[in-house]
């Protein structure tokens, strides 16, 4: 895999992970181009598309798009399930994850991703093993006073500039599990 992007329906980038060396300028260009391309696609269209010399695999969960760029010989369907397993990991960790969790706890989203994928390859597919690593870290949490339990009051108070609450649970709609 060459990179993974998470962005909202409004085109706001929520997470970016690059597995190939690119300049910041290039990253921004790619992001802009892909966000535009993917958002323009209709719901029932196929989840794969050719883009430059890469294959793009994407899937939407509630308000969030998960989008991976893979190489020619890579397997599209298994990439789709990489995305799904990542969403499951987030969901398990946060407990019914929503876009706001990823915004407010972006560092956690990165840590979980690093345990799951490393250098663009699947490192560990067992949910238990991935989360064990992250939860261990949480147990090591030292400063209990600074601890901020899932800042729900902040979530609710906050809205995007465009007014999107971004609070829908990624797994709320049944269509996210079943086929669409």
């Amino acid at each position, binding site marked *: 895999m060459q990179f993974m992007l998470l962005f909202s329906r409004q085109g706001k980038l929520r997470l970016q992970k690059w597995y190939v060396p690119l300049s910041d300028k290039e990253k921004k260009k790619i992001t802009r181009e892909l966000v535009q391309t993917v958002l323009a696609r209709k719901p029932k269209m196929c989840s794969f598309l050719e883009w430059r010399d890469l294959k793009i695999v994407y899937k939407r969960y509630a308000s969030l798009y998960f989008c991976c760029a893979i190489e020619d010989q890579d397997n599209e369907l298994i990439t789709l399930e990489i995305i799904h397993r990542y969403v499951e990991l987030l969901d398990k960790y946060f*407990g019914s994850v929503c876009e706001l969790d990823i915004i407010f706890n972006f560092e956690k989203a990165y840590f979980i991703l690093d345990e799951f994928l490393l*250098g663009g*390859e699947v490192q560990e597919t067992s949910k238990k093993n991935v989360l064990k690593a992250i939860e261990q870290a949480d147990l090591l949490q*030292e400063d209990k006073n600074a601890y901020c339990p899932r800042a729900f009051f902040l979530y609710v108070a906050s809205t995007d500039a465009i007014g999107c609450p971004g609070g829908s649970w990624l797994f709320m709609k049944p269509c996210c599990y079943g086929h669409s």
Partner: protein
Amino acid sequence: MPAVSKGDGMRGLAVFISDIRNCKSKEAEIKRINKELANIRSKFKGDKALDGYSKKKYVCKLLFIFLLGHDIDFGHMEAVNLLSSNKYTEKQIGYLFISVLVNSNSELIRLINNAIKNDLASRNPTFMCLALHCIANVGSREMGEAFAADIPRILVAGDSMDSVKQSAALCLLRLYKASPDLVPMGEWTARVVHLLNDQHMGVVTAAVSLITCLCKKNPDDFKTCISLAVSRLSRIVSSASTDLQDYTYYFVPAPWLSVKLLRLLQCYPPPEDAAVKGRLVECLETVLNKAQEPPKSKKVQHSNAKNAILFETISLIIHYDSEPNLLVRACNQLGQFLQHRETNLRYLALESMCTLASSEFSHEAVKTHIDTVINALKTERDVSVRQRAADLLYAMCDRSNAKQIVSEMLRYLETADYAIREEIVLKVAILAEKYAVDYSWYVDTILNLIRIAGDYVSEEVWYRVLQIVTNRDDVQGYAAKTVFEALQAPACHENMVKVGGYILGEFGNLIAGDPRSSPPVQFSLLHSKFHLCSVATRALLLSTYIKFINLFPETKATIQGVLRAGSQLRNADVELQQRAVEYLTLSSVASTDVLATVLEEMPPFPERESSILAKLKRKKGPGAGSALDDGRRDPSSNDINGGVEPTPSTVSTPSPSADLLGLRAAPPPVAPPAAAGAGNLLVDVFSDGPAAQPSLGPTPEEAFLSELEPPAPESPMALLADPAPAADPGAEDISPPIPEADELLNKFVCKNNGVLFENQLLQIGVKSEFRQNLGRMYLFYGNKTSVQFQNFSPTVIHPGELQTQLAVQTKRVAAQVDGGAQVQQVLNIECLRDFLTPPLLSVRFRYGGAPQALTLKLPVTVNKFFQPTEMTAQDFFQRWKQLSLPQQEAQKIFKANHPMDAEVTKAKLLGFGSALLDNVDPNPENFVGAGIIQTKALQVGCLLRLEPNAQAQMYRLTLRTSKETVSHHLCELLAQQF
């Protein structure tokens, strides 16, 4: 319910993020960010030492700001400090910051590497993993240099934790991809292969990726992985759906690992060991069988995971391309998917079938799905799926279904998405040519293409149809008739006019007998389109008109009338004006015989790979044309589709000027078309740029040599070339050569290309090639000013007896040279006998009203006609002795003018033209050469010896030739070079 973030939520960070989200405008956001940056900066600079938590919080805020798309230029040091914290969460944030904001600041890298080194040595697995993640995320060369040697050790160490091994494997993979040279192969590689047997599935999952990458470069070192991979795969495939516990995904056992193992096997040919192969084939069959079983879950994740393995299995089967049974089963399975309700599966099935179509075992099986695929092309709602369907039709096309597929693609073209029209056009054009049983069908197809999607028909496509029609006389009459009919349409595409104009100009006579398409009708039909066309097309039509005058004398008066019209003769476009003037003159001056010769039918084009195919490949990237490339499944297809084959009756010396298509790939950098003079006009009809000019193309060396033969007399270029008699301006008084002319000439004794002359107005470049007694020279005249040169006339003069020694043919160049422009002049040179003085080049022009004149020596010296001769020492000395008469030898002892460098000397001697003979002279410091001067009348054998004396900084040069004058002349020429 939310297990509440067990995390170490940082309240200050959450508040900041919330603030940002509440900003109502971009400006407000920037303002808030700047405020925060100022705050963080002051904290970092403050006297009070920050505690770890605060540092972590601020570093995290900076990271957030960076990820929003803003630049961050501080905080790196604080992040590095966090790396050495012994609190896990602080270290973690430090590493995250470093991973995202890599900075090549060398001081920092040293500190970072230090921290990583400490963590790797800490024997604390969580710290080790963090450090490995950081290396893998950054993946820079500096990190590779620091750690590439340590990581293999960690990977195979017996006491490494599983999670550490996993991270180490993928970390090493990333480093290997970035800088393979840094990762040393060695004893550890064998142990890595054995990780395939590891008990921990996660370790295997990570290790397979590493092995797959390594074995691509060193297949032999990793060969043992085949049997290990097969047995691992076999265990997974045959396990019950719950055996693997957490590694089972929606009832599918270890899908990621299975896919990776199947990928690994695709790096190798089928296993040689029969037992291993048997076991593998069993696995593949099991996967195919499972596809037919009812699903264990309705969740899409179940079917995706299962089908991911299935598609990877099919890829492996296609890769092996040796099990007909499996290939056909794979094809049938894909056939089912073609009608699946999941768009994703239809897409993948179409894609995968494309590769199956190129296997001889499954090609027929793929073809049975043609109707489904055609239906997909018509009904799929997603353009990317339709594109796959078009690709598959292209791949499955052969002689038996070409007509159906081409007509379906043509129909699709009428409604196709703009984005893929050009590609469809190229595909149709290629299929129509490749599988044409009769060429009338081919012509119809291309004309249909132009009619339906004229805008998307690129030059390559319509050039190609003209090439084919020109080369095949059995289709010319049909082409003329069809194109004539197509032009009747009230609105036809300009590309149709181009094709029509060219074909009628060449073959209009074949349909002229029919009163409905009599010459005047043909002409008025074409001319009715004239005014609506672009300059390039109108230029082409003018050439058609002059051809009409030749083919149909009855149209002469009408056409001359058209050419004479003010709108042509005084056209603002130089090209059109020039054509009108020249054609009008040609038609009134030349006799019918001359006209007929000049405007003879175009000779056949040389055979070559279709440039359309090349274009499609460029468009689609490598492998696009693979299904068609070699026709390996259709070995008997060489009859009429193997390319453009000239019909035997018309085979003749291909005119160099007809080399139209190949040259377009890389237009030469010089010479606008105007410079080519009238000669190229007729053959230049295709080109609107300089591309059609021969021999200055991308490989001047090759092109040059092939053209050194005098142009075939029947070639239109030679006829219109207007060879200027060599001595014609001799009567005029020529100014003497400029003082530095000799010096300039000397620069070219040992080289053929370069700048001959340059002043503030004019630059003259030379490019030349010689073979035997022939030479061709290109002179490039560059106007360095911004003002047009007028009455520009360069001429070559042969003073005195040179006229009998050297023949130089020049072509006239345009009399105006625009400011900043460059024109080119071609000289054909023939050496009749040995000569001593070079020809003169006289350049005259008017610049700003003032006449300018300049005379140079043309860099043609007798040594240019050297043919190097290799000989043994014995032969050399024998000949040396034979040339022992005093007048045969010339010798010169002279001081070195340049540093005495053996390599430079060698290069100069080779440039001079003689062969350099090694191991002849007993003194290895000396140089010995031999060659023959080729002239039309005689050959002069030459031997030379150059003895450098480094101490004295002197040379002694000795020349022995069969002719006294030559010996002395060569000696003079060469002595000035050192």
